[in-house]
C-alpha cells in the first residue's frame, strides 16, 4: 500500500519507505517505535524558534529520528540523516509526556528535533491529549506533506513553523533530496488559513544570491503578516567547509524585507539585535527578546495586551495565553 503521509507516497510493505518510520501491517500504515523519543526537555519557545506563539513560555521540545529529506546543510544530521547506533530512543507514551509538560510548568510540546511527518500518529496523539488538558502543541516541518496530512497538522497544531528553504525545484532536488517545492508552497497556504504559521529560511549562498527577495514576495502574497525568521546558518553535514554568510549580507536582506514583512527577524546567533517586535502601525517596541546563542533565546519582556499593541491597539498575529 502507498503511504499518504508525505508527498513521496512510498510503497510500504514489511519494508519501510524513504523515511524508514512506517511499514504496512494488515492493510494499515504502522508507525515504527511509536512514542519513542530521541529527547525531551523544557526550553524557551523562542529557541524553537516561535516568536509569536506563547512568548516567554517554556515548552517541552521533543522529536524522534529520521527525515524524508536529505538537506546538505542539516544541523541535526546526527539524528535525521546519519545512521548512528548511538541514537538512543526513550519511550514516553502520550500520558507520560503530557505529565512531564505539567510537572515542568511548560505550556505544551513542540515537535522540533526532526520532521514531524516521520512520527505523525504519535505527534497527533500527544497533541490531542495536550488539548484535553488545556495545553498547546506545535511543530517544525519541512512542509513536504500530502495535502491531507497538512490539513490534519493544521487542525491539530496550534502553531507551525515551516522551513521554506528555496523556491527552486532544482535546489530542492540537489540540496534537500526532495523532488520539488510545490507541495511546500501549497501547504504553507493551508497552514496560513488554518493555524498560526511562522516560516524560517536558512541563509545559504545560492538562496541569498538568487531568490531571497522572491521568497519574500511569495510570503507577502500569502499573507504579509506572516512571521519570517531569517536564519543564520552554520553550514553543517556536507557543507561544513562552506564559509558563513557575512553579517553585512544578512543585514541587507533583513533591512530590505522588513519593509514589506514587518514581522521579519534575523537570528540564530548570540547577541542578535534583530529579534525584537515593533508595532508596524505606531512603531512602538512591543516585545524585547534576547538571543544568547545559536538556537537559544527568550523574551525579555512583552508589552502586548491580549495580543494587541498597548499604544495603538493594533492586533499582532500570534497565539496568546491571555487572548
Amino acid at each position: 500500500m502507498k503511504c499518504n503521509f508525505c508527498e513521496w507516497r512510498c510503497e510500504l510493505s514489511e519494508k519501510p519507505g524513504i523515511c524508514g518510520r512506517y511499514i504496512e501491517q494488515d492493510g494499515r500504515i504502522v508507525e515504527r517505535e511509536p512514542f519513542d523519543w530521541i529527547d525531551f526537555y523544557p526550553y524557551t519557545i523562542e529557541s524553537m524558534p516561535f516568536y509569536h506563539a506563547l512568548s516567554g513560555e517554556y515548552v517541552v521540545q521533543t522529536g524522534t529520528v529520521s527525515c524524508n529529506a536529505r538537506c546538505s546543510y542539516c544541523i541535526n544530521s546526527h539524528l535525521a540523516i546519519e545512521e548512528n547506533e548511538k541514537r538512543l530512543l526513550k519511550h514516553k507514551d502520550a500520558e507520560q509526556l503530557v505529565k512531564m509538560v505539567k510537572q515542568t510548568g511548560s505550556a505544551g510540546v513542540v515537535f522540533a528535533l526532526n520532521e514531524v511527518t516521520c512520527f505523525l500518529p504519535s505527534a497527533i496523539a500527544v497533541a490531542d491529549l495536550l488539548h484535553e488538558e488545556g495545553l498547546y502543541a506545535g511543530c517544525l516541518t519541512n512542509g513536504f506533506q500530502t495535502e491531507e496530512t497538512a490539513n490534519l497538522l493544521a487542525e491539530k497544531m496550534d502553531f507551525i513553523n515551516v522551513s521554506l528553504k528555496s523556491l527552486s525545484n532544482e535546489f530542492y532536488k540537489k540540496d534537500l533530496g526532495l523532488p520539488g517545492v510545490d507541495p511546500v508552497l501549497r501547504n504553507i497556504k493551508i497552514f496560513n488559513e488554518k493555524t498560526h504559521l511562522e516560516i524560517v529560511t536558512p541563509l545559504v549562498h545560492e538562496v541569498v544570491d538568487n531568490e531571497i527577495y522572491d521568497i519574500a514576495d511569495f510570503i507577502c502574497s500569502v499573507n504579509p503578516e506572516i512571521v519570517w525568521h531569517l536564519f543564520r546558518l552554520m553550514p553543517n553535514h556536507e557543507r561544513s567547509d562552506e564559509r558563513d554568510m557575512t553579517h553585512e549580507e544578512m543585514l541587507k536582506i533583513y533591512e530590505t524585507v522588513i519593509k514589506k514583512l514587518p514581522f521579519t527577524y534575523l537570528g540564530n546567533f548570540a547577541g542578535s539585535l534583530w529579534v525584537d517586535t515593533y508595532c508596524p502601525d505606531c512603531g512602538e517596541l512591543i516585545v524585547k527578546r534576547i538571543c544568547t546563542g545559536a538556537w537559544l533565546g527568550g523574551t525579555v519582556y512583552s508589552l502586548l495586551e491580549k495580543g494587541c499593541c498597548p499604544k495603538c491597539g493594533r492586533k499582532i498575529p500570534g497565539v496568546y495565553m491571555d487572548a
Partner: protein
Amino acid sequence: MLEIMLDVNGWQGLFDFTNGEELPMEGKPYLDLAKKITAEHPYPGDLNPDTVKWTTDTALDVCREYDPQLMLLSYATADIMRINSKIDETEAKRISAEVISEAMRFAKTAGYEPIIISTGSLRPIDKLVVTEDIEGYFHVSADAYLGGVFGATEKDFETVKNLEGVRTETRQEFIDKYNITGDYALERMPDIVLYADDDYALTNTGGRGTTLEMIHRKTASTKIFSEIPDLPDDIFEFRTFVDGLLAQGRRIAVIIAESVDDEDMPEGSKDIKRIRDGICYAEGVPFYYALLNGKPFNAPDMPFIFHNPFLKKFFRDRYPYSYVKTDSYQDPIGFNRDFKTASMGTRSGIFHSACMCDYSFECHCRGLAESGVLAFINGDKLAKD
C-alpha cells in the same frame, strides 16, 4: 563596567555582562584590542581540529598586544572531538600530541613558565545505567556522570536503589553532606542525586539526542606537568600555588589540556588528586572552578548539574551570555588582580566565567552550535589603566 563582546560573522556587539543589555562601543579605547582579536580570529567550529592552532595563535596575538603576567589557556578540542564524534584512536592521539606541542609553542614564543594540567583520561562507554523506570523528570550532566530526579515519586526512591552502576543520595543527604545553604543551589536541587560508576554512563536528556562516544574516567588523580618545582598534590591547592608564583613576579601560563590521556601528557608529569567528598572533579564547571578558584563545587552556588526544570530558569536573566556564572562565584583567578591577566580557550561558557581576566577570550558554542567569538572585558579595570 564588566562587559561581554561578541563577534559573529563580522558583526560586533557589546553587552552588559550582568544583564545582557546592549552597550555603546564608542569612547572605550580598551575595546580596540578585543575588536581586533575577535575579528582576526573567527572560530573554526567545535568539531574542527584546527581549533588547537586557533587557540595558540589567538593567545599569542593577545600576548603581543597586551602582555599579561598571568595567561590562562584552555584546549578543549581533544575532549569535544573524542566525546562527540567518532575519531579513531590514532586521530585522538594526534590531536592530544598537537595540544601539548601547541601549549609548549605558546609558552616558548610568548615567554611564559607553563603549567599544563589535564582533566584526565577518557574511556569508552561499557554500560549504560537503565533509567527508563524513573517516573520523575530525569536530568543528566553533560558528561553523563551525574543525574538528578526532579519531582520524584515514592516509587522512584525505590527504583533507584535497584539500579546497576550508580550510587544515589537523597536531596537531604546531599544537602547535609555538602552543607549547601544558598537559595540559588537549594531551589535547583533534585530530589535524588545519582553518580555513575567509572564504567557506566547515565542516559541523558537535554543533550544532542545521542549517547556520548566516550566518558571521563573517574580516577583519583589526573596529570600535571611543569618544570616549576614543588607542584601541588591536589587540584584544590593549585590556586594558592599559582598565586605564590605570581607574587614573585613570574610570568605564568596555566594551560588546561582537556582529556589528554595520562600517557599522552609530557614525560615527567606527576599525579594531582581530584576527588573530594566522593565527587570526581573530572570536567567542566567543577574542574575549572576547583582548579582556578580552589573551592569545591558548592562554594559558588553552582550545583553543577542541578538546573531544576520546574523553575523555568534555564533562560537566565543574569549573566545571560555566561552560562554558568552566578552571583556567589567570588575571587576568580584573573579578576581585578594588580597585574595584567588574560585568557583564551575553547571551553565555551565556563572558561571566561572561571577566570574573569582583564580580557577573557573564547569561542561561543552551545551544544556544538557555533556563534562566533566571545570576549569578557573588565572595563572597570581597563578604563583606569
